[in-house]
């Protein structure tokens, strides 16, 4: 029993991995125990045999020439025919004049295009629906002095702001007093008008309950980009220590420029939630950041 325990340790003893105390204990036991001493001799004999299967590790004379040539060649292949600085400049230029470049980010671009298309479709549909509603409202009541643009914006927002405007419109006294000075109809007509507006409001609510609003789509797309950026940023942080200082500085500069653009476009998009152009610019900025992060990870 005691010997079994030592037998386990003999191999570690042989590898020189025991601490001082244990080594002394095993050495003492080996003096007294023929079995364990035999096990140690066996290990030594095996080791000698293994080492006779040796490898001629002498490198070919051109070994290092080949290594450096390959390093230079693969380095060039990795960065493409253009130096990194030029690639970054191209990336930044393409960013300042938004367009998608056909690179390894083709998938991201496709996703961005798909999201943008979806958002634009949503915006157009909403705008059409709103136009119909507004013209109906105008025709049937002659009550609306609200500019179409305002109506479009409030409708396409589909958010509390739009609801608030509707609520006000739904309130006969407020509408008459504040927004529709031309309304001279009697109480009955006003009741009809209020009922119609209420119906439109309900219809809008029903639509907004079943279909995502353009603003919601934009926000979802934004969230997807933010999530992708978070994942890529983690990879970039892992990769960062491997980049030389100059390269790292170039990437930092590129990312800072994009962050500023994201911030600006985001502000505009928030201010004009239904504006498709603002949304497109913002999403393009996010896509560009994904682009640059992927460049860093792949560099």
């Amino acid at each position, binding site marked *: 029993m005691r010997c079994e325990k030592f037998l386990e340790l003999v*191999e*570690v003893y042989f*590898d*020189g*991995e025991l601490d001082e105390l244990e080594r002394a204990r095993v050495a003492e036991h080996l003096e007294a125990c023929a079995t364990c001493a035999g096990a140690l001799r*066996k*290990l030594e*004999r*095996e*080791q000698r*045999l*293994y*080492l*006779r*299967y*040796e*490898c*001629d*590790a*002498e*490198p*070919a004379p051109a*070994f*290092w020439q*080949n*290594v*450096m040539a*390959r*390093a230079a060649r*693969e*380095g060039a292949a*990795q960065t493409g025919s253009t130096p990194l600085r030029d690639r970054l400049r191209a990336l930044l230029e393409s960013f300042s004049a938004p367009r998608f470049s056909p690179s390894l980010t083709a998938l991201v671009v496709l996703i961005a295009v798909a999201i943008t298309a979806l958002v634009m479709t949503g915006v157009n549909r909403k705008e059409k629906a709103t136009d119909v509603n507004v013209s109906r409202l105008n025709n049937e009541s002659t009550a609306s002095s609200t500019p179409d643009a305002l109506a479009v914006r409030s409708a396409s927002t589909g958010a509390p702001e739009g609801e608030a405007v509707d609520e006000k419109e739904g309130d006969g006294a407020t509408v008459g007093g504040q927004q529709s000075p031309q309304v001279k109809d009697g109480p009955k007509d006003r009741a009809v008008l209020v009922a119609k507006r209420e119906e439109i409001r309900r219809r809008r609510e029903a639509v907004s309950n079943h279909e995502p609003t353009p603003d919601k789509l934009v926000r979802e797309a934004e969230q997807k980009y933010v999530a992708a950026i978070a994942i890529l940023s983690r990879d970039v942080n892992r990769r960062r*220590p*491997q*980049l*030389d200082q100059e390269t790292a500085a170039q990437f930092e500069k590129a990312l800072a420029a994009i962050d500023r653009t994201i911030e600006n476009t985001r502000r505009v998009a928030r201010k004009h939630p239904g504006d498709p152009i603002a949304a497109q610019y913002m999403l393009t900025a996010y896509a560009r950041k994904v682009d640059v992060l992927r460049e860093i990870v792949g560099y």
Partner: protein
Amino acid sequence: MEVMRLAGQPGAYADASMNSHEDLIARARRGDEEAFRLIFERYTRPVISFIFYMVNRRDLAEELAQETFVRAYKNINGLRDEAKLSTWLFGIARNVAREAVRDRQRARADHLELEDRAVAAIRDERPTPVGELLSKELNGLMSEALLKLDEDKRLVFTLKVYQQRSYDEIAQITGFSIPKIRNALHRARAEMRRRLSSYLGVKDEM
């Protein structure tokens, strides 16, 4: 010569070799090929030998060793602790060898694998010191026994037996825990012992 020149630089009076080593690494990080080669050249033979025991083909070992140094050159900025340069390099070599083994496993049928071993045995007709001559039979047996170890066991066995690495260093290179290393090494030795038993028996009688 390089070391001498660097040792003469200001501030390099106390530990000239250490300072030059750091300086060399700093230069290598900036893409200085000469500095890189000065640092890594001494590892050429150990890396070739390590990969040879992993893939069992001398020509492939040389090619993969080149690949190892190319990757090291490209990723020199990934070397965090300069004191662990050797284990870092062997970590790369391990990955390169592993990829090659897996590629070969995917790409080749068993009979071709056997052909490889036959070719390897023939290729092994290199000058060997007198008295160290290993019979071709044992050579083939050793090669086969090593190849039959699974990847983890072969890795740990090679690092311990042929590279004389400590458990700690093996842990750094492989990412395995010390208990796993001890276990894999014990099992690898047991397997090797079983496969070479006839030869070890003959040797016992001598």
